[in-house]
């Protein structure tokens, strides 16, 4: 009996690996296409249809066009600030809210939760939001990109769910030891929730990395522009180039074909380094450490 179980287990293992392999190929292919396309010659790319198994020619002009823009370095700097400071701040705020919403025996927990979820559906629109930010004196400052987006309700709900799944025994024993809510959150709950904290850092980090809309509305000084806004300007300008450029602008047009891909690579590569770093928090059994203490 042990033999056949091992065999069927092995078969299932192989199936899973195969399935996973297919999924990997299918999901990684778009990125590979983007990578190849970014290094390709524009004219050949425009004519080409179908899969790319290698760059068509080798042409760095799209990257040159992107990096030639003097704002790129500033963009990286601004965005790094936003990502680091903004994510930590947001995770902190989210943790405060998620903690509150995950406790039992708090009278106003339900109504507050309702009020928060309500904002996911109804809002005032862009113009009053702009006025609020302006009245707080945040216009033209990087803080306008952090504070008005302190908490994303969806994320807070996720964190709350994670906090709720921690057994009550932890909180109880901490209270017996005389801890108040603040220390319970930071000394008990958070350490036991490292996976979800990692996810929050990832979600907020990526969110801030990709953000450009608030920057477009609230910032006047170009030196404060985050990376994505600059990249977006390059993209739009090139799109317009295709529609309006003169007869000899074939070079610019070729660029327009490959630039969107270079922009994606430029914008994504840094993120690719963060995720594996956060991955280690997804290891099973993180909670075990504090369990039987």
């Amino acid at each position, binding site marked *: 009996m042990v033999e056949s179980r091992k065999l069927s287990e092995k078969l299932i293992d192989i199936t899973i690996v195969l399935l996973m392999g297919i999924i990997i190929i299918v999901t990684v292919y778009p990125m590979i296409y983007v990578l190849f396309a970014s290094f390709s010659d524009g004219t050949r790319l*425009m004519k080409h249809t179908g899969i790319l198994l290698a760059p068509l020619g080798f042409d760095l002009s799209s990257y040159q066009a992107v990096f030639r823009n003097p704002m790129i370095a500033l963009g990286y700097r601004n965005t790094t600030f936003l990502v680091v400071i903004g994510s930590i701040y947001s995770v902190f705020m989210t943790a405060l809210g998620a903690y509150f919403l995950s406790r039992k025996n708090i009278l106003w927990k339900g109504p507050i939760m309702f009020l928060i979820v309500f904002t996911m559906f109804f809002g005032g629109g862009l113009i009053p939001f702009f006025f609020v930010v302006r009245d707080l004196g945040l216009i033209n400052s990087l803080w306008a990109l952090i504070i008005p987006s302190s908490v994303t309700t969806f994320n807070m709900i996720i964190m709350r769910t994670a906090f709720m799944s921690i057994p009550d025994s932890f909180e109880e024993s901490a209270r017996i030891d005389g801890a108040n809510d603040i220390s319970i959150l930071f000394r008990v709950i958070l350490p036991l929730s490292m996976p979800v904290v990692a996810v929050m850092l990832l979600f907020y980090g990526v969110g801030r990395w990709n953000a450009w809309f608030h920057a477009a509305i609230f910032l006047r000084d170009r030196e404060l522009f985050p990376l994505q806004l600059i990249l*977006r300007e390059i993209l739009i*300008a090139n799109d317009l180039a295709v529609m309006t450029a*003169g007869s*000899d*602008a074939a070079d610019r047009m070729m660029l327009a074909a490959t630039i969107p891909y270079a922009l994606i690579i430029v914008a994504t590569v840094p993120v690719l380094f963060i995720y594996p770093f956060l991955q280690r928090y997804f290891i099973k059994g993180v909670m075990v450490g504090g369990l039987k203490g």
Partner: protein
Amino acid sequence: MKNNSKVIIAVVVVLLVVVAIWFTVGRPPAEEPVAVTPTPAPAPAPAPGEPADIYPLDTDVVLTYWMALPAPHVSANFTNFADTPLYQRVFTETGVTVEFMHPPEGQATEQFNLMVASGDLPDVIEWGWHAFPGGPAKAIADGLIRPLNDIFENYAPNISALLEENPQWARQAMTDDGTFYMFPFIRDDRVDNRLLVSTGIFLRYDWLQALELQLPETFDDWRTVLTAFRDEKGAVAPLSHDAFMTRDHFQTGFGVNMGFFLEGEEVRWGPMQPGFKEWLELFRDWYADGLIDPEIATVDRRALEAKILGGQTGATIGAMVGRLGFYTDAMRATDPNVKFMGTRNPVRNRGEEPLFGMGPLSLGTGAIGTGAQAAITTRAEDHEVEIAARFLDFNYSEEGYTLFSFGIEDQSFTWVDGIPTFTDLIYNHPDGWPIAEALSAFARSPSNGPFLQSAEYIWQYAYLPEQRASWENWEWSMGRPDGQLRWLPRTTPTSDEASEMAAIMTQVNTLRDETVLRIMTGVAPVEEWDTFVETAKGMGIERAIEIQEAGVQRFINRP
């Protein structure tokens, strides 16, 4: 149960709070813009027509000027318009310094709305006033921009003279009650329509030559040509286009178009006319025979590019510079014999005159161009108004005219036989800038702006001989002064009319697009057109026609 009642309490509290906020928080605490009836400042002004010796002006005023930086021609190389040689020169000549404010590219509409809503206005705004809800008349009525009639008279002799000498331009630059509101972008059409007609049907001329065929004139000619493209040249999508619903060039031969047109002073809707059914039948036949791209409904710009560059398509519709010029340039690298040529819109029988034309009324593609136009806002104080007006008026003076169309003498152009001619700096820029960008550092002719665009610039800009030849064919189709059927002029609907039109036309156009493509691709029988007309009527197309007629009447009656 406790939870429920607490939720109810919370809801009630929310509602109360929200209602309270509604009624107490109203407009932002910023200054209220007030509708201003400007009184002309009592400073003496030179009589219109006198040479402008007033420049450079002696003033400290710095004007604030909001506009979208022309992209990509200027934005590729400059982040602020004031940095361009063009405006450096303008500041020196006029003696006025201007602080330009540009929204990030692609965000112009949001920025404009936020700016206006917050009351934080500059002195001058360049904006497409027809896109303002309610049109330019509402922008004035709501107190955003100033009426310019008196300002023109007192401070802007150049534009005043131009408008007086050319009432057809003046007509287009005013609201229905005769108020001027902008320093217009005028395309000089006094000699011919070269600046107005830039789009049409074009095809692979080298293929025609190889197949020993002439440029097609009739629909039968077209069938022959497309069949030959398909059979002899391996074009699997002989005729293709990426915005099929917006093009009328084949329909005009049947006396219809895809939208509204004028017959006399009456407005008609093209898709409702019997000629439209005939056109549908023709194209349905062509599609069934593989003469039209099978993917016609899904083709986008990139796919079209791929088909043309890859030789799958031999005929399409597009602009002489942005498409024809571009394809030529892109393909000549590998095949120097490639040549595109524009043709006239096809007619039913050889020798027929085109049914559509441009007449005095029909200024759909009029001299007063579309796009952003400069207006002076109510934020500008009276003395600033004068400076702003003179600053903008400079563009229409002798010097301004040459500067804005051709750039700086001995840098971007030189005088050759009395005509400003572009220099090598434009054609072969040392940093490899394409012509459009090189020119845009010195002039605004490649895009638009508050100036009179010279007719002399275009053939130097679109310099391929086939571009000019193409234009001639296109112009012939569109430029009949005595055409019985004409395109609509640019009317200014009221905001109620605009909303009603939008509500009706969104549905009608959806129906139109679906029906046309369904019949054309064979999914539906031609008879579906009959039900289509009935349904369109049910959606209110006749009311839409009424609204258009009202607008046209008001246009005709402009002073």
